[in-house]
C-alpha cells in the first residue's frame, strides 16, 4: 500500500463537508507529517490482549524516554549555541517520536500490527520527520513555555505518547503532560474513549470504525507534532488543522456541517463570550423542556409507523441546529451572536440535517441505550472544545482572529455533537461519525459527477 500524505493548507475561511481538498503543495508540507495506510482490519485476538501485549513496549519506551530526555537537553543547548540540532541526536529523538506514534496507534487500536522496537518507518500509522533545520534561538530557549498551549490540546486529544509516566485510559491520570519529569506512553482524552469503544467494536466486527480510527490517528499526529516541537525536532508550531491528515475521506452522513466563518473575531464579543451566551443558555433550557416532550412523541410515532412526523422532525432539527450554533458561539468556533430559532443557514457554522425517511424500529426502540457510546465520545470532544475555547479566547483577544486549526477541530466537535443529538432525537438513524475531517475526497458518485460538470455541489457554502 502506497503511503499517502497529507497536508494541503486549505482555504480556511470556507470549508464544507464533502468538498475535495485542494492539491497538496510542497511548500505547505509540514516538518512532521502523519502518514496513514491502515486498512481498519483488526485481528480480534490481538485486540483482546492488546494492553498486555504492549507491556514490553511500555517498559522499553520508558527507558528510551529517559535517554530521549537527556538527549533533548543536549539538543537544546546545541540549538541555543549553534542554532541547529546535531543530525545524529535529531535522528535519535525523531526515532523516539516515531516509535511513540507507533505504540500510541497500537494501543489506541488505530493500527493493527505489533510495532517494532526501533521506530523504523513503515508502520500503518506513522510520521515523517524532516532533517534538522535552523531554529531561532529565542524560540528554542523558551520552547517549553511556548509549547504549553499545544500540550494542553494534545492532552485533551490524548494523542500524547511521551508525557506520562504510566499507561492509562483515564484522562485524569495524565499527570505531567507539560513536563519531562517522567517519560513513557500515556493515552487519555478522546483517544482513550476511542480505544475503549474501538475495543468492543473490533472484537465484534473485526474492524475499527473508520471515523474513530481517523480521530485517533489525527490526535496521535497532533501529539507527534507537539512533542516534536517541544523536543526541538522542529521550530514549526503544531497545527490542529484536521485537513493536514491524509487521505481524508468523509463518509456520507445526513447531518453535515457548513463552515463559512471568516475567522475574524470582535475582541469585545470574545471577551464577554460566556456572559453573552447566558440568555441563549436560558432559552436552551426552556426549549429542552418542549423538546423532551416532542422527542417522546416522535419516538412513539417512529415505533408505530417507522417514521417521525415531519412537523416534529422540523422542530427537533431546529433545536439541534440551535444547539450547534450555540456550541459554535460559546467555544469561539463561530464569531457572531447566534439567533434563537435555529434557522437553517443563519449562522456561519451551520449544520444541515437531511429529513429522515423510514427508520428501523429496533434501533428506534433502543435509541437511548445505543446513543451511550456516542455520548461518551461527545464528552471527549467536549473536552477538546473547552480547550479550543480557552486557547482561542486568548488568541482572538490578542490577534482579533481565531486560529484556523483550532476553529476547524472545534467545528468537527460541533458537528459530532450535532450528529449525536440528531441521532438521539430521532433526526436520523445513522450513527454519529467521529471523523475530525471537515474536507475530504468526494465519495458519492453524484457529487463526483457534479464536480466533473463544474456544478457547485454544496451551493452557497463554497
Amino acid at each position, binding site marked *: 500500500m502506497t503511503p499517502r500524505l497529507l497536508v494541503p493548507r486549505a482555504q480556511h475561511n470556507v470549508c464544507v463537508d464533502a468538498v475535495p481538498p485542494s492539491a497538496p503543495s510542497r511548500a505547505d508540507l509540514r516538518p512532521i507529517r502523519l502518514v496513514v495506510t491502515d486498512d481498519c482490519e483488526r485481528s480480534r485476538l490481538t485486540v483482546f490482549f492488546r494492553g498486555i501485549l504492549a507491556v514490553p513496549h511500555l517498559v522499553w519506551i520508558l527507558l528510551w524516554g529517559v535517554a530521549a530526555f537527556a538527549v533533548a537537553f543536549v539538543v537544546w543547548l546545541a540549538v541555543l549555541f549553534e542554532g541547529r540540532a546535531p543530525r545524529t541526536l535529531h535522528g535519535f529523538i525523531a526515532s523516539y517520536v516515531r516509535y511513540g506514534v507507533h505504540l500510541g496507534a497500537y494501543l489506541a487500536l488505530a493500527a493493527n500490527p505489533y510495532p517494532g522496537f526501533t521506530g523504523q518507518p513503515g508502520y500503518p500509522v506513522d510520521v515523517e520527520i524532516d532533517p534538522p533545520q535552523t531554529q531561532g534561538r529565542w524560540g528554542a530557549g523558551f520552547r517549553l513555555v511556548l509549547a504549553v498551549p499545544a500540550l494542553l490540546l494534545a492532552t485533551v486529544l490524548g494523542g500524547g505518547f511521551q508525557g506520562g509516566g504510566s499507561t492509562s485510559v483515564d484522562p485524569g491520570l495524565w499527570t505531567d503532560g507539560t513536563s519531562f519529569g517522567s517519560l513513557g506512553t500515556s493515552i487519555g482524552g478522546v483517544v482513550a474513549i476511542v480505544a475503549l469503544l474501538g475495543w468492543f467494536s473490533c472484537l465484534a466486527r473485526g474492524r475499527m470504525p473508520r471515523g474513530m480510527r481517523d480521530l485517533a490517528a489525527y490526535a496521535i499526529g497532533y501529539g507527534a507534532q507537539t512533542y516534536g516541537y517541544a523536543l526541538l525536532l522542529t521550530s514549526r508550531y503544531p497545527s490542529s488543522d484536521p485537513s493536514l491528515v491524509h487521505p481524508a475521506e468523509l463518509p456520507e452522513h445526513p447531518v453535515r456541517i457548513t463552515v463559512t466563518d471568516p475567522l475574524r473575531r470582535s475582541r*469585545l*464579543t470574545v*471577551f464577554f463570550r460566556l*456572559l*453573552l451566551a*447566558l*440568555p441563549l443558555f436560558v432559552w436552551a433550557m426552556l426549549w429542552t423542556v418542549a423538546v423532551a416532550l416532542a422527542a417522546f412523541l416522535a419516538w412513539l410515532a417512529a415505533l408505530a409507523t417507522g417514521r417521525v412526523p415531519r412537523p416534529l422532525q422540523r422542530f427537533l432539527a431546529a433545536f439541534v441546529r440551535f444547539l450547534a450554533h450555540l456550541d459554535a458561539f460559546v467555544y469561539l468556533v463561530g464569531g457572531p*451572536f*447566534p439567533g*434563537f430559532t435555529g434557522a437553517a443557514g443563519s449562522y456561519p457554522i451551520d449544520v444541515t440535517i437531511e429529513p429522515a425517511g423510514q427508520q428501523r424500529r429496533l434501533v428506534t426502540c433502543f435509541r437511548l441505550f445505543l446513543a451511550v457510546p456516542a455520548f461518551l465520545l461527545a464528552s471527549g470532544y467536549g473536552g477538546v472544545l473547552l480547550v479550543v475555547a480557552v486557547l482561542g479566547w486568548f488568541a482572538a483577544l490578542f490577534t482579533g482572529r481565531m486560529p484556523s486549526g483550532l476553529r476547524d477541530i472545534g467545528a468537527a466537535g460541533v458537528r459530532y455533537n450535532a450528529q449525536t443529538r440528531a441521532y438521539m432525537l430521532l433526526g436520523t438513524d445513522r450513527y454519529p461519525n467521529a471523523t475530525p475531517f471537515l474536507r475530504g475526497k468526494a465519495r458519492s458518485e453524484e457529487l463526483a459527477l457534479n464536480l466533473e460538470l463544474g456544478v457547485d455541489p454544496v451551493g452557497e457554502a463554497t
Partner: protein
Amino acid sequence: MWVATARLLLEDAVPDSLALPRVDIDATFGAELVEDARRYERFLVIDWIVAQVVLLAVLWVYAKRGVRFIAQSAAGRIGTGMMLGMLGLGIVWLVQLPFGAAALWWERRHDTTEIGYLEWAFGDWLALGASFLAISLALLIVMALAGWLREWWWIPGAGAFVAIAALLTFVSPYLVETKPLGDAGLVQAAREYEREQGIGEIPLRVEEVSGDTSDANAYATGLGPTRRVILWDTLIDGRFDDGAERTVIAHEVAHHSSRHLPKSLAWFGMFALPAAWLLMRLTRRRGGMQAPEAVPLALLVVAVIQLVAAPFQSAISRSMEMEADWKALTSTRDPEGARELFVGFAETGLGDPSPPGWQQLLLGTHPTLADRVAMAEAWKVMRTP
C-alpha cells in the same frame, strides 16, 4: 392623577408638627469619629461622581458608535438588540472596574469590608452575568412589544416591568440564604411590636454576612405571605445592646406595617410610565425600540433618567425610613436604644452623621444619622408631660 397618587403615597405616620432639635454632632458621635467618617465618605463620593461621569461619557460614545456591533450578530431583531444591550453593559462594567476597585481598596483600608480583591472580582462577574440576563429580559419585553404595538409599547411595557418588580419582591426572601433568629427575647419583642402596629406575625431571619463586612444592617422584604424581616448577623454579634437591636426590629416591622414595599412598587410604576414614554420619544430617530439600532442610545437614555430620578427616589426612600423610625420609637418607647443604634452605625460603618446637603439630596436613602438621633430626642420631648 399622578400628583394625587403621589400625595396619597406620601402620607405617613410622622406628626406634621414634628420639629427636629439641633444635635451637637461632635458631642453625640465623638469629634474624632465624625472627622474619620467625613474623610472616609468623601473619597467614596468623589469616586462615585467620577464613575458617573465616566459612565455617561462611555454610554455617549456607545450610543454613537455601538451600532457597528450589529455586524457581530447573526440573530434576528430582538437577539441583536439583546447582544447590543449586553455589550453596552459589558463596556460599562469594564470602565467602572477601576472605580469599584478603588472603593474596595478604601473600604479595606478602613476595615469596613472583609471582601478580598479576588472574591470581589469573581462576585462581580456573577453580578454582571445577572445584569446581562436582566437586560436581555428587559429588551425582550420592550422590543417584542415595540415590534407589535410600535410607539404604544411604553404603556404595557411599564406595566410589565412593574409586574416583574412585584414578582422579584415576592420571591426575594427565597433568594437569600437565612436561618431563624434564635434569640427568644428578640422574637418575643417582635411579636409585641407586630401587635402594636396592627399586623400579623412576620418571620424573623438572620443572614450571615460577617465574612464580607462589619457593617450592621437589617431589611424588610417580601410581599404578603412571603414577608420577612432579615437581620444581618453583624447586628446581633454583641456590638449593639438589646435596646438597639429591638429598635432595628421595630423599624423593620414598621416597614411592613406601613406597607412600604407595595408603596415602593407603586412609586416604581409611577416613575416607569413617564420614563418609558421618554425612552420611546428619544429613540424615535433610531427607528424606535423595535429596532436594534436604538438599543445603544436607549442605554444612555436610561442611565440619564436614573441619574435625574435619583434625588426623587432618595427623597421617597428617606420619607419611608423616617416613618419607620418614628413607628419604631412609638413601639419600643426607647429613645436611648435608638440613639445607641444610630451612634453604633456611625462607628461600625463609618457613616458620616451629617453629610453635605447635596450629597444627602442625591444619595441619601435614609435620614442622616444626626437627624435620626434628633428624631429620638424629639420623641422623648413629645412624650415628656
